[in-house]
């Protein structure tokens, strides 16, 4: 019944000097010096532009950004509980559909973007996120992944890597490796079971032009889309705050993070190294892995090796496409 209202076509950016100058995530926020998630927020806001509504489930990107009645968002923004970013976005999207249809609001359908941490997306927020995607709401759900519950003081989340030292997985004589579990895979969760989703991608702050273009591609799609963005956290991971981008780059070079798009059933990879560096080079920059023994590192290396060698599942066969 509802006609597609979105007509926008956000153009891709070719070079770093074509990155839009306008800022919608402004200076004046309480995120860490060298904050990876803040950097991705800035880039996402640039990519999306002024006709955007951000939703902020509880996490660093709520608490550190919106501290003490100050927010850095030049566009509308709303806090949501850590549990329900996807559901609140669904309601806003539904409201805009009906308000535009009835002529109560004018203009282009807004970009609705949920900016959820790993906890607010694939842990406590999973149900609301999955439902938003299942129902096909026209919204972009971003999981900015700093691999821990950082705002509460660095506790383990489902995306904390094996061997990560967090305040809930401290290494000790009985549990020497710290975190013993291997992480959830957010984009595969989304791709694997949501027929309404047409576009999923991973991105990294190390490659800002690629990140901006993936955001724009996702926003041009009518329907739910998902981005999983790697955002190193100097506090939680224990590295020098000047090295945030360097650590992000190294994650890709070692295979700890993989850059790809899933575009309506088709995988495309970006920045895939010809030869991967050993994960040890990535680990040694970070205090959270300082306690790992050679055996632990070998286990992590084997996990990464298997991951980078694995062929993606031909998802068209597994999940039929919705119209």
């Amino acid at each position, binding site marked *: 019944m509802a006609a597609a209202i979105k007509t926008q076509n956000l153009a891709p950016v070719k070079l770093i000097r074509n990155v839009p100058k306008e800022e919608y995530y402004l*200076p*004046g926020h309480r995120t860490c010096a*060298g904050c990876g998630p*803040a950097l991705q927020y800035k880039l996402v806001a640039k990519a999306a532009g002024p006709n955007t509504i951000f939703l902020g489930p509880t996490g660093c990107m709520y608490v550190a950004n919106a*501290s003490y009645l100050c927010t850095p968002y*030049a566009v509308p923004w709303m806090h949501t509980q850590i549990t329900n970013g996807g559901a609140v976005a669904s309601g806003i999207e539904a409201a805009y559909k009906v308000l535009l249809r009835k002529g109560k609001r004018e203009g282009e359908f807004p970009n609705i973007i949920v900016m959820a941490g790993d906890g607010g997306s694939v842990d406590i927020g999973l149900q609301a996120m999955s439902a938003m995607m299942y129902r096909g709401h026209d919204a972009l759900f971003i999981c900015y992944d700093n691999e821990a519950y950082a705002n509460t003081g660095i506790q383990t989340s489902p995306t904390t890597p094996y061997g990560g030292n967090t305040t809930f997985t401290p290494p000790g004589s009985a549990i020497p490796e710290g975190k013993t579990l291997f992480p959830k895979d957010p984009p595969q969760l989304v791709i694997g079971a949501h027929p309404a989703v047409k576009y999923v991608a991973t991105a990294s702050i190390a490659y800002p032009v690629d990140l901006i273009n993936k955001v724009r591609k996702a926003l041009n799609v009518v329907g739910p889309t998902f981005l999983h963005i790697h955002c190193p956290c100097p506090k939680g991971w224990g590295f020098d705050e*000047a*090295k945030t*981008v360097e650590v992000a780059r190294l994650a890709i070079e070692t295979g700890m993070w993989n850059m790809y798009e899933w575009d309506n059933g088709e995988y495309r990879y970006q920045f895939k190294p010809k030869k991967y560096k050993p994960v040890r080079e990535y680990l040694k920059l970070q205090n959270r892995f300082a306690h790992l023994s050679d055996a632990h590192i070998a286990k992590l290396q084997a996990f990464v090796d298997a991951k980078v060698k694995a062929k993606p599942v031909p998802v068209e066969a597994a999940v039929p496409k919705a119209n």
Partner: protein
Amino acid sequence: MFKIPKGKEVPLGCVTPAPVGEQPMMITGNWREFRPLLEPEKCDLCMNCIVFCPDACFQLDDAEEKVVLNEKYCKGCNICINECAPGALTAAYELDFDDGVVRLDKPF
């Protein structure tokens, strides 16, 4: 009916106006131990400092000929120095400068 002491006011429903250009109630220049210092003759406008600053503190000037640092908000993470392709940025100790930081009563 109620008397709200100054400094404790909260807008109705905790809805605040969106900031314009910057959030002047959260000045973060005083977080900085080392400030990035640009040697203009080395700068080739690679734009890395502009793109990689998490706090949006670097911008091109109006003539688009040089990059300008917003010292009011720069937290001194020095990502810009690490990412500067031609090596035009160096870290300078903040106490070596008399100016460049807004002095606040409280941390925020």
